[in-house]
């Protein structure tokens, strides 16, 4: 049986060129980055040696960041905990192959992106349990919520429901570029694709999303509600 990671687009071994670096894109856990390491050597050595204290420090340093990356790509999901756990388990088990040419943050981002992508490709998205959805998030409420935070959450749910209809690779590339503010080069490296493919995916996702947003006129007041207080 193929391991979940073997289903990632790591099989597409592209050459990425630009901005002063040139490297092969393969297994995200093996991938090196042009970013200077600049990491605490003791922490890195500890992580490579599977020292629990070092792994714990790594987790504490990156957990919230990884949560944010995954949450932005998948949207509100009851599986967030699961996905963050998978990311760190894969990271912990892969430290031995980490060559230290990229920052640990970049490295763990790649793993997180691929875990999120795999989740989206598996098509196993589950409804958020009602217990986890505050009342103000109920989609049937026609009026935008009064406070900005609630409006913002509702908008995220609505937008991700639309993004669910876009192919995962396009969706992830689009969100990395527009919401996570990654450059095209970063999107390409994080998704294991060429720069041209990344651009193309972002562009087609935009087109598909625009067509869907056009059919959702009630999103306008919701956007206004999120921007009122900001």
């Amino acid at each position: 049986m193929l391991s979940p990671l073997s289903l990632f687009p790591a099989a597409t071994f592209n050459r990425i060129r630009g901005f002063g670096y040139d490297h092969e894109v393969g297994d995200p856990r093996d991938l090196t980055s042009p970013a200077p390491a600049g990491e605490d050597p003791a922490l890195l050595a500890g992580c490579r040696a599977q020292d629990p204290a070092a792994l714990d420090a790594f987790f504490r340093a990156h957990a919230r960041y990884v949560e944010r990356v995954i949450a932005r790509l998948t949207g509100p999901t009851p599986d967030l905990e699961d996905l963050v756990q998978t990311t760190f388990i894969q990271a912990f088990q892969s430290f031995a192959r980490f060559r230290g040419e990229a920052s640990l943050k970049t490295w763990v981002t790649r793993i997180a992106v691929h875990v999120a992508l795999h989740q989206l490709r598996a098509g196993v998205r589950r409804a958020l349990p009602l217990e986890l959805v505050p009342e103000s998030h109920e989609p049937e409420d026609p009026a935008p919520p009064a406070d900005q935070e609630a409006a913002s959450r509702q908008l995220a749910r609505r937008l991700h429901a639309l993004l669910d209809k876009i192919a995962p690779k396009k969706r992830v590339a689009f969100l990395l570029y527009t919401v996570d503010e990654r450059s095209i080069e970063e999107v390409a490296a994080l998704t294991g694709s060429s720069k041209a493919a990344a651009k193309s995916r972002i562009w087609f996702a935009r087109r598909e999303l625009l067509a869907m947003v056009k059919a959702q006129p009630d999103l306008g007041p919701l956007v206004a509600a999120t921007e009122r207080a900001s």
Partner: protein
Amino acid sequence: MTPSCTRASRLSLASVGGHASEAERLELEAHLATCARCSAAHAELAPVRALRAAEPDGLSSSARERVRRAALAGATRAPASAPRRWGPVGVGGALALASIAALLFLGRPAADGPRVVSGDVAIARGSGAGPEGVVVTSARGGEVRLGDAETALARETSLVWRRDARSVELRAGSVTIDVEHRAGQHFQVRTPRFLVEVIGTRFTVDLAGVRTERGTVRVFAADGTPLGYVAAGQSWTLPAPAAPAPAEAPPAPAAVTPRPVPAAAPSSPVAAPARTFADDGPSARLGQARRALARGNAGEARRLVEPIFHLGRELAVEARVIYAESFLTEGRYTDAVDGYETVVRDFPRTAQAESALYAVAQLESEHGRQAEARAGLARYLAHYPHGRFAREANDRLTGLTAPAQ
């Protein structure tokens, strides 16, 4: 669309993502002022701009703590499968292999079915298990491999294994399962009255509850209502129905022992009302505290249970366990250890004391305090040589390395 419209579309997208320079933004605005079509398209990207500005919901502190513990526990174990380097095989090779695998699978649907490892285990199709289900029974107990899960069946156990759904339907008896985490596809054990969803763990389920030895499981009511999490060293038991169950409902559990319960535990809607206690009584407060804990609100949980410390033994021990767990959810492991020690000291010979004693050792181990962990495990085994966590404690004790010279 004019060439300038094409460029404006690209600038609009760059602007939404925060990539446009000041000059490019001015160029875009100039174009939008004269082109209604591009202006409308740019406005339609406003939800994406709003999404960028919003901070997504992260995990609660308790959930993050669960992930931390599970990930660290996972790091000490061998990976389920070595990462593959496809190299020159490339996409074509991978697809070809996948096709061959699919053909083999389609031709031999039973090839990945249950495999008996040892003991008295019978495997059969049919018996109301549906087209995908396989009935696994054991009269005297045995071990069987279900997909990627190693399972031990107790005596008089009957279950249905559905490989595609990665689920077990427990019909009778008890089953202990050791399974690796797999993203996006939870291993599930369903009983008539509740559902256990696995995050990657070793745990035991019978028709009355679940006990987790390693990792974490999520428990749902039969109707899908989430009830909470059961972490390593904890167990959860179905509450006894207050009203007589309808004829078609499963019988009530024979013995319901209050044990550490992670969240409010309404039983099946057909078997019992959601609340079986006064809304303002100590039992209700315990329920509220568990729910607060499940939401990650440790302070609220502590506030709710503190008045119960001096009430009856059964209530007080529950309150003390919740109190200890509240520190755990905040990552205050020293306080959590103190809380569990209180349970051990003040409530000896209770199920909670056994769990608490093991939890102390486990916490010490997870925080790299090996000498304390060894002492804790030895203490647990001295008190409970045949206890619920004896096997796990022995394994951990063996795994702990000798102190540094």
